[in-house]
């Protein structure tokens, strides 16, 4: 089943590999944004079914972006999956407390990224 996803990450390599994976392997429609502010605008405009949101970004970081998405009636219903290279348990607890749908970890496997998202969101 096809889905529409928004990827928000300031790292162009991560953004492009994730988009390649989800478009090529899963056949999903992928929108991208390179900052939290751009992500907010794209989310309102594109109305994706889910947002994959990087944690560490300059300016508005992932948690701040998530809070803005949650406050906006146009985007509050969209599930957010945080994407992070932080593996320490204290960081993971902090992210879990934010109320996101799931946390995905970098590095991700391009072959299983779509499945991870589907499993996390109960799409299967």
């Amino acid at each position, binding site marked *: 089943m096809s889905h529409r996803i928004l990827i928000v990450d300031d790292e162009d*390599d991560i953004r*492009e590999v994730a988009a390649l994976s989800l478009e090529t392997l899963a056949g999903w429609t992928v929108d991208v944004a390179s900052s939290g502010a751009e992500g907010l605008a794209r989310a309102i405009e594109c109305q994706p079914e889910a947002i994959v949101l990087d944690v560490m970004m300059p300016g508005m970081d992932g948690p701040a972006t998530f809070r803005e998405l949650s406050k906006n009636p146009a985007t509050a219903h969209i599930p957010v999956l945080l994407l992070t290279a932080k593996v320490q348990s204290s960081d993971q607890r902090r992210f879990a407390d934010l109320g996101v749908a799931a946390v995905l970890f970098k590095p991700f496997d391009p*072959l299983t990224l779509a499945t*991870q998202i589907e499993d996390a969101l109960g799409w299967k």
Partner: protein
Amino acid sequence: MKDAQASERPFSLEPAEQNALTEALDRMWAKFLPQIEERVGLLESSAAAFSAHELSVHQREAACAAAHKLAGVLGTFGLTRGTVLSRELEIMYSTQIGPSLAARLIELAAELRTIVANRK
């Protein structure tokens, strides 16, 4: 909240599709290699500066950020060992380490350089 890390089931791919994806990833590796090499270079120069007791706060923060970014991306291109080494460097640069670890910083950066250079 679910922990999505445990998922192992990939989408099924025909051999031709698998090859196409692998080739696309290889093209992306080539595209982003200069940026990756630049980050490895920053870790090499930071290790040398630390060894010479000349590592500034700004350099340390830059090294920490470079290691973090490498940790996040190298495994995505199949370089799992590169991610492990980068994480070790990120932890070292984010904490107060003593001069005795200078050699380890240099060693880790050198191994990262080799790993990146040897990816086909």
